[in-house]
């Protein structure tokens, strides 16, 4: 049966692996947009994080410093988006586009400055995988504890934690109120501005970490425009998932599954372009078909006062 050649067990770990950067950035998008700030800049934030990760590992020789650099880079670019959209009330979509262009230009310029090369950095120490003793012996879920990146576990923690905070705590209740009715939230005494800054900066940090996964786990160097649209895919996953961290995670898994089966499709007569388009077609279908069911935060993109 040909179908078994395409769908085999190896797909599950691969799908999870490919989902990590998308899910991290998607949850970043969820946080930002729940606070009412549209974040088209995820792509640029991810790219900056990927660059920061390699630069940190290059400077110190330690990939963990790379991860810290990625977080800092994400925080910095996240705060640029935050200051412009919250303090200066800039158009959020235009700012996001500006951030993507800036990140693209800046990282490519710096490759040449730091490594004297065109288009890609030098090799740096990458973040190795870990296996967890005892747990890796358990049948059926052994793969989850064998040769996994620490960032994969971090992503899973972020998924659960952010879902819990958003839907089971007062902080989450406030955040959802801000996204839907910012004025009412402000009147009831919530510090809307503080929530917004925190969420947008966190979205930069998470997208930056997603970028670090691309450059330090899946690779050991930075390549010009290496995010290749994953930030936009994360934005799509956030919408597809209904602005819910669990939904974002599931959507990321669906998208990365479409990427994963590409590796098994070589030799079949399905052109790669169709499989690559799949996540976007799915998202469009969901937006149009179930558009009325999954709804965006009501005041998304509107900065009051």
């Amino acid at each position, binding site marked *: 049966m040909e179908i078994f050649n395409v769908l085999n067990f190896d797909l599950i770990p691969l799908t999870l692996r490919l989902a990590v950067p998308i899910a991290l950035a998607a949850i970043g998008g969820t946080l930002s947009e729940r606070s009412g700030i549209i974040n088209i800049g995820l792509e640029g934030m991810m790219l900056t994080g990927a660059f920061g990760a390699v630069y940190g590992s290059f400077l110190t020789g330690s990939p963990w410093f790379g991860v810290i650099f990625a977080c800092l880079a994400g925080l910095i670019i996240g705060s640029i988006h935050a200051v412009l959209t919250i303090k200066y009330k800039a158009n959020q979509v235009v700012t996001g586009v500006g951030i993507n262009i*800036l990140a693209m230009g800046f990282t490519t310029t710096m490759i040449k400055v730091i490594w004297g090369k065109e288009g890609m950095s030098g090799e740096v120490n990458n973040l190795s995988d870990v296996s967890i003793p005892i747990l890796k012996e358990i049948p059926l879920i052994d793969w989850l504890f064998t040769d996994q990146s620490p960032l994969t576990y971090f992503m899973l923690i972020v998924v659960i934690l952010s879902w819990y905070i958003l839907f089971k705590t007062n902080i989450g209740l406030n955040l959802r109120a801000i996204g839907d009715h910012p004025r009412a939230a402000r009147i009831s005494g919530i510090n809307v501005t503080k929530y917004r800054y925190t969420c947008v900066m966190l979205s930069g940090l998470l997208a930056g970490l997603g970028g670090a996964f691309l450059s330090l786990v899946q690779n050991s160097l930075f390549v010009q425009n290496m995010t290749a649209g994953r930030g936009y895919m994360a*934005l799509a996953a956030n919408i597809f998932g209904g602005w819910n961290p669990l939904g974002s995670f599931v959507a990321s898994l669906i998208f990365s599954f479409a990427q994963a089966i590409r590796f098994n499709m070589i030799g079949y007569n399905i052109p790669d372009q169709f499989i690559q*388009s799949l996540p*976007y077609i799915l998202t*469009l279908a969901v937006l149009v078909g179930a*558009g009325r069911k999954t709804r965006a935060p009501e005041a998304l993109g509107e900065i009051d006062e």
Partner: protein
Amino acid sequence: MKFKDIIGGISRSESVKDVYISLFSILLALIIGAFLIFLIGSSPLQAFTVMFDGAFGSVSNIANTLTKTIPLIFTGLAVAVAFRCGLFNIGAEGQLYLGAFFSVLTALKFSFLPAFILLPVAILGGIISGMIWGGIPGFLKAQFGTHEVVVTVMMNYIGINITSYLVNYPFKAEGWVAQTDIIPTAAILPKLIPKTQLSAGLIVAVIAALAVYFLLWKTDIGYEIRAVGENPTTAESGGINIKKNISLAMAISGGLAALAGVTQSLGVYERFIDGFSPGYGFTGIAVAVLGRNHPLGVILTALLFGALETGALKMDRVTEISNDLVIVIQGLVILFVAAPEIIRSILKRRESQ
């Protein structure tokens, strides 16, 4: 024609302020760019001199600058028309790929047509495909309220993949490169300056800018589009059909974006090449924003960006600074224009001193 008319009926002081903000944004971005060059350890003055020379230093340099300006005028106009209707078209990139491919396909399939008809038909083929690809997000927004930003982002990837499939499989020319056959000579846009890449696409671009100006400010259709953009509620109570205008504005926007791909394919490459655009659709957003969504502003900004990009190529060769620094400058310009409050607060501080 009075100045007020040229800038499209906005009150004079408002638009003068807008122009100030655009000019200051460029200045600030260039200053930060110069500072970056300094940090890298090069001379900003030398870098900018080399850039200027690269953009305007000779007839062929000027031709190169104008060649780069053409697609940016089209994508800038595309984004501007959508903006005037209150819509954000991030999909110019996908629209220009479809336009490019289908203009080439039309030129190849209708090569039996008389020479003087073939070129207009090929251009039309491109425009129609772009209008459809741009019109879909407009229609979805009008019918289902689906946000056009998300839809156009998705449709960029789908559109680029569709043309990539078409040029890699059914319409691939012999050989290793993913490109179509060369189009018949009759479908090639004539060159304005021999031995350069500058084609009559420039004339098409200027005509398109005039047409957009005429459409938006001199016709009822344009009046309705702008009314929807300025205040949909008022427009609706005034009897304007919002849904129709949203679909129409996006279709026109898609058609204009398509022309960026059409003029590149018929004027520069003389065929369709997979992945040919370095992001004209996205730079078009910067062009429209900086050009204040006005055709004249779009032409001037496109010229500025075209000059920056052409000049940067020489800077890349001569100095140790990457030509991608220009992308940094473009990104900064967008951020400053997006947040006019920054410029206003700087200007205010200066006044109070």
